[in-house]
């Protein structure tokens, strides 16, 4: 029993790290551009699919960590320029526009990758002895990569020029523009970064989940919940919320079947939303 | 009609570390046009927000004609007859001027009929047309509120406050942003209204304040500095001190003192 609990808790924790990456991408888009990005789950899905294609083309999974986020970044920038920019971001319109993007992404994947779900074999097989259980080595790699990506993202946001510009535009668009920061460019970059984060999460997750053109649909609500429970505009909060939510669901799964676990964690989320609508983590809010 | 219209008892409101309203005990008599003035940050709009129920005080009570209205919700306070205009003009932007007034009038009804056409309400139609005339906006009746000039929006707000037969009118900087001609019109209107309705006005324009107010209360840092009639206020040293840094007000207070 304890073994199952530990296993599921670790799985939940690692899955939470991956979701944190994806949810951060959503939070950045939502916080900066005020866009309700219905296609964000599909950004993740595209990441898993691209990881599969890279593996097929090069025989090397690891190189996907470099190539896929790059492709995703470019795609994100293109989508922002072509679709988001013309709308000037009214919430209703962004829902419809990103819904359209979502349909297109799913269909393009269905056309190229196909409709059958496929699995990627983990690039590293085998297990490691951890806290008395045998744990998949690849999942530990996944954790490491996720943590590295999270760290890199926060470093980028806080210590690079562009990252600072992004934070400035998020905080106060008008003053930032008045100070000479190219807001339009920042919007394009932000969308690209958001897609890239989700895509990176897709590569990390590809070997431990199925690669399927419908893979983004289930993920989307979780990401939005993490963004809102973590506190709108609160990036560290979003990451923390994602990890906690996934961990909680993993733990509940040790005593109940997955569906019940889903339902319980959803009920808990409703409680948070109703009782603390500002989110759980006010501390770091900007 | 010189009984108290509005009274607060030790009213306190804090925002985090900032005390916007500090143990405020106000006593405003009815039948006299009450003005509330003070430098920026004095807590004037916060006071209005507390009275109209948009904010809840940390402690203290608010009384409207001896009725405790502390903690009531905004629509309940509105139904008691307290109507207000906002510092940042706030109307229903995508509705026309006429529709704005119409819905305001119907909102004061207890029951909103879900099926009968709103436009068939002749009593409301009359009242709306009357109010349009009162505020001189009959020509603009079908204009969408969002397309109005700032001064016209302010006038619409006053119209909306009037159409529901207010017992107490709270005007928050009603002439801010108006042209001189609009200001004159508005001031006349306000003076006329003050004859039959109790009004409390927040205003920055000293000329207007000293022109129309019967009683002035000066707030600074959330508390009452001094209160009295225009003569007393204009001669008061502490008032001048509070306004240090606003030379145009200081000059005006000087002039008023020697008028």
């Amino acid at each position, binding site marked *: 029993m304890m073994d199952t609990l530990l296993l599921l808790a670790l799985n939940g924790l690692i899955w939470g790290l991956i979701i944190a990456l994806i949810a951060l991408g959503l939070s950045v888009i939502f916080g900066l551009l005020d866009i309700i990005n*219905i296609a964000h789950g599909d950004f993740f899905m595209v990441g898993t699919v691209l990881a599969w294609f890279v593996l097929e083309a090069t025989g090397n999974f690891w190189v996907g960590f470099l190539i896929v986020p790059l492709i995703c970044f470019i795609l994100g920038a293109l989508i922002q320029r072509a*679709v988001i920019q013309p*709308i000037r971001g*009214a*919430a*209703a*319109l962004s*829902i*419809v*526009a990103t*819904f*359209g*993007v979502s*349909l*297109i992404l*799913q*269909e393009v994947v269905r*056309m190229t990758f196909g409709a059958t779900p496929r699995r990627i074999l983990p690039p590293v097989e085998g297990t490691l002895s951890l806290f008395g259980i045998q744990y998949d080595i690849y999942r530990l790699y996944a954790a490491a990569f996720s943590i590295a990506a999270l760290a890199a993202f926060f470093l980028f946001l806080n210590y690079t020029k562009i990252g600072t510009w992004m934070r400035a535009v998020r905080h106060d668009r008008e003053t930032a523009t008045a100070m000479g920061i190219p807001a339009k460019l920042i919007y394009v970059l932000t969308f690209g970064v958001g897609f890239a984060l989700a895509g990176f999460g897709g590569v990390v997750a590809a070997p431990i989940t199925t690669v399927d053109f419908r893979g983004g649909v289930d993920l989307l*609500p979780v990401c*939005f*919940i993490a963004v*809102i429970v973590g506190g709108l505009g609160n990036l560290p909060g979003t990451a923390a919320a994602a990890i906690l939510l996934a961990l909680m669901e993993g733990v509940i799964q040790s005593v109940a079947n997955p*569906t019940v676990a*889903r*339902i319980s964690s*959803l*009920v808990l*989320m*409703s409680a948070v*939303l*109703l009782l603390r*609508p500002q989110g759980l983590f006010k501390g770091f809010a900007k | 009609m010189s009984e108290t219209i509005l009274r607060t008892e030790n009213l306190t409101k804090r925002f985090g570390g900032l005390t916007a309203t500090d143990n405020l005990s106000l006593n405003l008599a009815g039948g006299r046009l009450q003005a509330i003035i003070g430098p920026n940050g004095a807590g004037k709009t916060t006071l209005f927000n507390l009275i*109209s*129920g*948009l904010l809840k005080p940390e402690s203290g009570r608010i009384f409207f004609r001896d009725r405790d209205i502390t903690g009531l919700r*905004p*629509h309940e306070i*509105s139904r008691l007859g307290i109507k*207000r205009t*906002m510092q940042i003009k*706030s*109307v*229903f932007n*995508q*509705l026309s001027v006429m529709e704005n007034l*119409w*819905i*305001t009038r*119907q*909102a*004061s*009804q207890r029951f*909103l*009929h*879900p*099926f009968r*056409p*709103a436009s068939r309400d002749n009593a409301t139609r009359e009242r709306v047309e009357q109010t349009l005339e009162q505020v001189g906006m009959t020509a603009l009746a079908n204009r969408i509120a969002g397309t109005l000039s700032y001064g016209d929006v302010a006038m619409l707000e006053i119209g*909306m406050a009037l159409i*529901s037969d207010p017992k107490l009118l709270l005007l928050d900087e009603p002439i801010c942003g108006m042209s001189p001609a609009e200001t004159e019109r508005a001031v006349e209107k306000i003076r006329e209204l003050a004859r039959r309705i109790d009004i409390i006005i927040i205003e920055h324009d000293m000329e207007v304040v000293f022109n129309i107010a019967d009683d002035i209360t000066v707030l600074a840092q959330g508390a009452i500095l001094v209160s009295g009639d225009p003569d007393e206020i204009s001669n008061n040293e502490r008032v001048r001190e509070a306004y240090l840094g606003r030379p145009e007000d200081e000059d005006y207070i000087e002039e008023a003192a020697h008028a």
Partner: protein
Amino acid sequence: MTASTNGRIAIERGVMVIFAAFLLTVPWTIPALINSFWVSVIAEILIWSLFAASANLLFGYVGLLSFGQALFFGFGMYGVGIGIDQLGLSFWPAFGLGIAASMAMALVAGVFAVRLTWHYFAIITVVFSLIFYFLAVSMKWLTGGDDGINFSLPPTFSFGSSQWSFADANFQYFFILATVAFCFFLMRLVIGSSLGKAFMAVRENDVRASLIGLNVYLIRLTAFVMAGFLAGVSGALFAFFGRYASATYMFYHVSGEGLVWAIVGGAGTLFGPIIGTTVFIIIREVVSTHWEHHSLIVGALAILVVIFAPKGLVGLWRETIDRLMASRAERSIPAKVRIES
């Protein structure tokens, strides 16, 4: 009201009469012109238009962005499905159960949800609908999960030996048409009423609304329950139409589709949901027979509409007609007056 707006309204009235006449003769004209399969497509469009209208009532008129309408659709659908299949109810009691269940659910959910500001409101509608989706999936014995339950339909009316039931395709079509038309009629009444004006006031400026004496919470809750009713009716009709109920239709994505149809058609207009739903479903049906990737067209259309017609297709129509009428009016004014104005 300007002359051009009056002209436009006259044109719209004319269009509606033609449209109504068309709908009344569908069971005969469509099979003659195309084929009878399209009669059921039109019936489906009517059902989903009602669903889109429920999202539109909340979003377009009250400013509440709900991703939860599929939940109430599902309650209406399963009210009928479970009512007939497991409880042995006949047509009208099952219909009543579906409607009552969806309205009750809307009331319960609304009491909590409607207090929240829009981001939290939107996400909690997703969460609520997911909770019940997973419940429906896990209670397969009752709901059939994603596979759903099939059932045969009891007659709608029986007088002695004669019966009217959905087995008769024409009766089915007209019943659906009548129900949907009635619901739209109710919507029209509400929108034109004082309550409807209050909805719009709350949408435009909820602070100002409370200051003029409107109980914003109660008004939002009322709208939420009304929208739950509409979604529930459409769910019940869906169950009657397909003799089928499935948890798939309770998934939040379905709510999203309804919302998109309403916005593309024209949020905040009575006919927006019908037009949006018609466009999307017809494209789906027409294109899918020739090309399996019709979703690409649907997605591209959604994007193009919001970029070029942000007020939806109805908004585009109105702007175009107004502009045409205005320029016609201008041309008929004598030159002297035109220069002065």
